């Protein structure tokens, strides 16, 4: 009786309008709260422009859900729309399959964080520096300066090697010296070179040892830890320094050789 007296149009009463508005207002409040929390949680992890897009998607998505829930209060039932929408959804679903896949993969990459902007990485057979992680794709500058846009689906499903994820990394050399040379002396010479380089870490300690008695040389193995940011520079610098110092000490790096005994067959 009360509702009929307050009817505005058709079966819609003032109370229905109030419930509709209340639902929309609540959805706006919830959307704002979620947006704020998402920003707080992801601001250190995600680039600003990506975060901005994610924020808007979440904000308007929640409001849209609120409006859809509230619409029946105004007598607008979405059953018909759902049938039409179902067909359109199938068409759109097929059309946007890869987009959605990339989007979801991008969100997982943002949350899991196997790579960050500036990291030196290898994704599948692509190596380089991560320039940007977007919602749909990841941009890599390869070491030879090429721009590579990799769909996030491929990034997510590929083997990812992050060369700088940890603060330090190890690399290795193998240097051959002659059998006539003093391996102990060679080890001391190499250790001195390592000691003098600022970025050869004191801890974990570098290791220098005889690794193999090869066909042409005594193989020395040298294992070095360096800060991840500079490991490649250190790796390049050390090899030549070791070669120079070994030669200064009279230790030779032999060419492949084979001793042939000729048997006098009379």
């Amino acid at each position, binding site marked *: 009786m009360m509702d009929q007296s307050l009817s505005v149009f058709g079966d819609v009463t003032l109370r229905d309008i109030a419930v509709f508005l209340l639902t929309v207002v609540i959805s706006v409040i919830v959307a704002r709260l979620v947006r704020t929390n998402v920003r707080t949680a992801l601001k250190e992890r995600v680039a600003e422009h990506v975060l901005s897009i994610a924020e808007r998607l979440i904000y308007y998505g929640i409001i849209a859900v609120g409006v859809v829930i509230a619409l029946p209060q105004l007598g607008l039932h979405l059953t018909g729309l759902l049938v039409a929408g179902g067909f359109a959804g199938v068409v759109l679903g097929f059309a946007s399959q890869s987009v959605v896949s990339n989007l979801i993969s991008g969100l997982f990459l943002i949350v899991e964080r196997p790579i960050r902007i500036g990291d030196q990485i290898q994704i599948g057979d692509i190596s380089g520096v991560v320039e940007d992680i977007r919602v749909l794709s990841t941009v890599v500058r390869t070491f030879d300066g090429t721009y590579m846009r990799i769909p996030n689906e491929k990034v997510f499903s590929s083997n990812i090697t992050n060369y700088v994820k940890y603060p330090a990394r190890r690399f290795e050399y193998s240097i051959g010296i002659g059998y006539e040379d003093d391996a102990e002396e060679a080890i001391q010479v190499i250790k001195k070179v390592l000691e003098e380089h600022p970025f050869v*870490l004191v801890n974990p300690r570098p290791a220098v040892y005889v690794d193999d008695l090869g066909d042409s040389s005594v193989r020395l193995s040298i294992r070095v830890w360096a800060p991840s940011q*500079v490991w490649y520079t250190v790796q390049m610098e050390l090899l030549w320094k070791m070669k120079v110092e070994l030669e200064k000490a009279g230790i030779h790096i032999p060419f492949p050789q084979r001793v042939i005994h000729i048997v006098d067959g009379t």
Partner: protein
Amino acid sequence: MFGSYQFGKPVSLGSSTIETYQEKGLYVYHRKSDSELKKIMPSPFNLLVTPVEPVTQPEMITHYLLIRTAFPVLVPSRSKITVVVTFPIEIGVFPETEESLNMGFFSSTRKEEEPIDLFTVTSPKYTLYGDPDNGVICKMWRSDVYTQVPQVDPLSEGIANVEIENLAPQRKEITNLVFDVRYMRIFYDGLAMANAVMKVNSTGSAETSFLEEPPLVGMKKAATLFNSSKGAVMEKESFLMERGL
């Protein structure tokens, strides 16, 4: 040594010499040492030569300094001792503008200048504090342990008074002192000095920090490369040593 120098006056810093002069109408900054450096300046300028946070050479890759003592320092349970250790010196050369002269050296309102030059006469070395998966890269320095200020080369070694407080129920052996040098307060007056604190807590980890007070009366505050006021959010100005003492 450390201090202010007028344009044109040479500065002798051990094996290095700094000269400022005019050449073909240009104002030149020239450091003569093993690695020579020459820069053209926009105007005649005075120099401020001061110790800076020792993590810039040969390249700034970290802001942590690990001082490894020659021998372990035993600190009895629930007690406090003060030891003196050395730290590496890195030298910063800053242009001294009229503005900074009028406002006094490094007063709280002074605009921080970018250094013209950073160098060291020490041999830098780095290490990992902790494990390869979760440690931190630190500039490393080996130091003897003293009870009073030792004789050192002021261009290569500074002095840190470290008060170590052991709050744990067991005696602790200290070999490593790791500091976040973004919050290092270096003071100088011929010799560079700092006051530091290490608190060993009951779980075996330790918190290290620097004190604002100069070790000796009348010492000047050194220039800083890390201006903490630039950051919007002030972090806790200490380092938590959780990966071994």
